[in-house]
């Protein structure tokens, strides 16, 4: 049990996918303009991650033992179809959100955090329960980073920043400082 808690906290804070593994930077820099949108994109990503983890475990246990070279291709196909499914679901349930997410919804497919999750949990040899907890932690960590960044960006819109600095350069430097803050979590469990 403590093992599972450790996996969750580690994926959520200490080895945050965005701020210490640099995964999922495209949506992190692209969608983090508004708090509301980024929160919902985060939740969609969590959902895709959970399904991916489930499928990855299934593929790893039953199919990929026989054909390890198909790993990458089968993972990406699973992720692409899950995203397609979510896209249809969101379009049906909330057309407003569908519009707000725009191009970044299909781009969840090329969100490296999701493929990264499948590959990392395979490399670490996680079982089903561990894999699901890992996916949950990583997804929530992604959402946390996205929401924090969106909050900071909304503030920085109002700040008197030099013109040249505006845009991606400023966002990257904000992300750097955020990442520095997250490094503090590295000491969280060392005593235990």
């Amino acid at each position: 049990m403590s093992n599972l808690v450790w996996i969750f906290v580690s994926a959520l804070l200490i080895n945050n996918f965005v701020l210490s593994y640099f995964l999922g930077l495209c949506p992190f820099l692209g969608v983090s303009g508004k708090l509301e949108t980024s929160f919902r994109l985060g939740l969609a990503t969590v959902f895709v991650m959970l399904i991916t983890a489930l499928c990855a475990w299934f593929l790893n246990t039953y199919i990929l033992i026989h054909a390890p070279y198909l790993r990458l291709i089968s993972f990406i196909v699973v992720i692409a179809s899950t995203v397609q499914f979510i896209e249809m679901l969101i379009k049906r349930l909330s057309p407003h959100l569908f519009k707000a997410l725009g191009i970044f919804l299909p781009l969840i497919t090329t969100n490296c955090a999701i493929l990264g999750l499948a590959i990392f949990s395979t490399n670490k040899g996680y079982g089903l329960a561990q894999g699901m907890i890992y996916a949950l932690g990583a997804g929530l960590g992604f959402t946390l980073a996205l929401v924090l960044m969106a909050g900071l960006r909304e503030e920085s819109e109002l700040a008197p920043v030099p013109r040249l600095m505006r845009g991606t350069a400023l966002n990257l430097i904000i992300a750097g400082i955020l990442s520095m803050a997250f490094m503090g979590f590295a000491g969280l469990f060392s005593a235990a």
Partner: protein
Amino acid sequence: MSFDRNRLKTSDNARASRRPIMPKAQQDAYQEFIKGLWRDNPVFVQVLGMCPILAVTNSAVNALAMGGATFFVLVTSSFLVSSLKRWIPRQVRISTYVIIIATFVTVTDFALQALVPQIHKELGAFIPLIVVNCMILGRQEAFASKNSVRLAVVDALGMASGFLFALFALGGVREILGEGRFFGIDLFGPEFEPWVIMILPPGGFLTLGLLLLFFSWVKERKEQLAERLADMQGEPS
């Protein structure tokens, strides 16, 4: 990827305005190459493919290995996509591109594992993650699927060189400041206190942010200079 296409359009206009004197086919190819390397650099101008850019650039050697792998994947998949473009149905084109890219990445992954196991180990999961590098998919969608094989390969060569250049710049800066070394050679002697933060994750964000700032500053200066030049020419002296 929609904004990528717009950028391509503006760069087409820019290309028409200043042309060096060369045979037409050759000059087109030359322009496509330079476009990727400098004017539309995938990293510094288009801000694509960020994840590998930041994750593996803690030393110049890793950056080069990653750049080389991406180079191979981009050029071969551009070649294949533009050769097959007539047979790929529109509805499933993205999935087709992704599968083509994934195939080449698998090849690269196994090749690196066999040839340079040490570097493969250090790059770890980031070699398979080339599949989801938005820069590669973006090139297939925006260029390779619409142009001749020759132009597509030249465009891929340019973009990949631009990517390699950016990776190398970032990796070089981070290794020099973070460890005081370049390709493992000591640069500053024993008194140098390395800026450890540069090789840790925050250093990646900060370095790239500052490099982008530098590039937009250069661009701004160039525009100002051109404006002043135009003013001077306009005034009767």
